[in-house]
Structure formats: structure tokens, C-alpha cells
């Protein structure tokens, strides 16, 4: 069980690197850095564990696998918390309610998201990212799914069915 200390150390390093990157360098897509750090730390953990606990039995193999999966899970949890709680829609909503007493009214809150332009605050953030990422094409008037966008949408629809999620998107 001693070998589980290695992923604990790696997770601490992951947080420190991620925090430093986002706080001081403000990258446009922090997830690219999160992915890079997570992968490098997985390689490092594998190296350290194999050095001290070489694989000679199924127990050792499961020890390594448990360490790597727990490390990846902890990194993913931080990553997901960052995006859903601090950066995402739910976190923003709660942030608005907490910091601006004027918005503690359903209609005023909705109006603040609807804005005055063609796109509301939600679409204005996401549509350009989808176009830039190659998921959606636009000719200025129409948004059309590109092949990789279709693949992702079909995968999402399958998940809706398999796990009885309704229509997803945070709507119950």
C-alpha cells in the first residue's frame, strides 16, 4: 500500500502546475495544459513505481494499475471541478447570485444572460469555440455540424439512451 504515496505526490504536483499555469499565464485553453501535466505525471509515476516495486506478480500489476487510475481520477476530478464549478455555467450562475444582489431575481438573471445581441451569453461563448475546434461550420447564417461534431453528437445521444438521461445539457 506504500506505493499509493507516489500518486498522492503526483496529484499535488498536478495541482501546483495547473494553478501556476492558469493564475500566471492565463492560457486560452487550460485543458491542453491539464492534459499535458496529467500524461507526464502518469509516465513519471509509472517509472517510480516500477523502480521500487517491479512487476513480478498480479498483485504488483494491480498495485501499479490502482496507483495510475487513482492518480488520473484525482487529476480528472480537479480538472472537472475547475471547468464545471469555476469556469462553467453552474459556477457562473452561483457566482452571479453570490456577488450581485441585483441579480437575485429570476427575470433579471435571465435577462443578464440573454443580453441584447443575436447570441445570448451562453451561445456567444460556445459557438465560436465549436467553430474554431472544427465541430461546427458556419457561413455566417447557418451552423452546420461537421463530421467530428456529428460523431460526438451521436455518441452523446447513445449515452442519453443507455443511461436514461433524458435530453442532457443540465435540463431535468
Amino acid at each position, binding site marked *: 500500500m506504500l506505493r499509493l504515496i507516489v500518486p498522492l505526490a503526483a496529484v499535488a504536483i498536478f495541482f501546483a502546475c495547473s*494553478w501556476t499555469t*492558469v493564475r500566471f499565464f492565463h492560457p486560452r485553453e487550460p485543458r491542453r495544459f491539464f492534459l499535458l501535466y496529467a500524461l507526464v505525471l502518469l509516465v513519471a509515476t509509472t517509472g517510480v513505481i516500477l523502480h521500487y516495486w517491479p512487476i513480478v506478480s*498480479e498483485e504488483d500489476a494491480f498495485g501499479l494499475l490502482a496507483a495510475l487510475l487513482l492518480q488520473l481520477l484525482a487529476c480528472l476530478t480537479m480538472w*472537472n471541478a475547475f471547468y464545471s464549478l469555476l469556469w462553467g455555467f453552474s459556477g457562473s450562475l452561483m457566482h452571479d447570485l453570490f456577488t450581485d444582489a441585483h441579480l437575485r431575481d429570476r427575470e433579471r438573471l*435571465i435577462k443578464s444572460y440573454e443580453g441584447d445581441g443575436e447570441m445570448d451569453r451562453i451561445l456567444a461563448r460556445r459557438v465560436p469555440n465549436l467553430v474554431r475546434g472544427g465541430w461546427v461550420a458556419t457561413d455566417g447564417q447557418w451552423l452546420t455540424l461537421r463530421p467530428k461534431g456529428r460523431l460526438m453528437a451521436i455518441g452523446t445521444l447513445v449515452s*442519453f439512451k443507455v*443511461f436514461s438521461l433524458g435530453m442532457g445539457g443540465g*435540463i431535468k
Partner: protein
Amino acid sequence: MLSQVAFASAILLLSQTAMVAALAALRPKSNIYVTIVLVALVTSPVVFYSDALLFGRRLTVEGRLFLVLVHLALGGFLFHFITLPDRSVTLRLLVELERAPEHRLSVPMLAGRYSVRSMIGSRLTQLADGQFIAIDASGRLTLRPRGNWFGRFVTGGRRLFRITSAN
């Protein structure tokens, strides 16, 4: 040996996924995240004693504990995976485009199918159900103690990471 470990891990993941999917189908109104956590925890003792079935021999106690940790970690990955289709606004936008004729929509049509009003309305209801806020008949929103704690957490986290502009 490594292929046996990979096979055992695949069996653990598939069995958890199948159980969660079956329970979600039987009780569609239940909370899928609670289901995932319960399935992972309740089946852990079974996994602890399944070593002979998976490997044809008994593992040491430490080996069996590692087996259970792998099982729990896989449950954690399933939990994270479900948040994508269930919560992601971006994926829902792609789904709306997929369901549209010729897989295309104008921005006003997209906003009409998945409106900010319905999104916020639903999230506010979920926050009220979770005791984070209270909503009165006139639409006034009041932060409950849990909502104040969550608001402080989000605001503090944003300050920690110096996030000034988010979604």
C-alpha cells in the same frame, strides 16, 4: 499476466456500467450519480472475493485491496463520464444540431430549441431542490446557507486562479 489484469479491469468496468444502466432504466427519475456511487460501493465486497474467479487463484490481501481500488477508480471514471452528456451545454448544442433537418440551424433557431431561459430555469430549480437557494412566487431568489457556502467556494476559487471571465 498483464493481459489477465487488463481483462479483469475490463470486466469490472463493463459490469459496473451495465448495472448502472439497468438501474437507471428501472428508475429513470433517480439520481444517476447516487446510483453510480452506490453500485461501486455495494459491489466492492463482491470484487474483493472475486479474485479466484478472475485469476483462477487467490490473491494476497494487498492484491485484493488493489483490485477493489481499481474497481472504485473505474466507478469514479464512470461518474465523470456521465457528467459530460448529462451536464454539458456544449454537447447539448451539438445534439440539437444533429437532430435538426440537414444537421443545421441558424443561431436564433438554436437558441429557440435550447433557450437560455429554459437552461437557467432548470438550473435554478435544481439549485432550489438541492437547498442552495429559495425561489418565492414572484421569482425572488434567496441564498440559503448551503448556497452562501457554494458561492464563497466559487468566488474564492476564481480569485485563487484569477479567473475574471467565464461562461
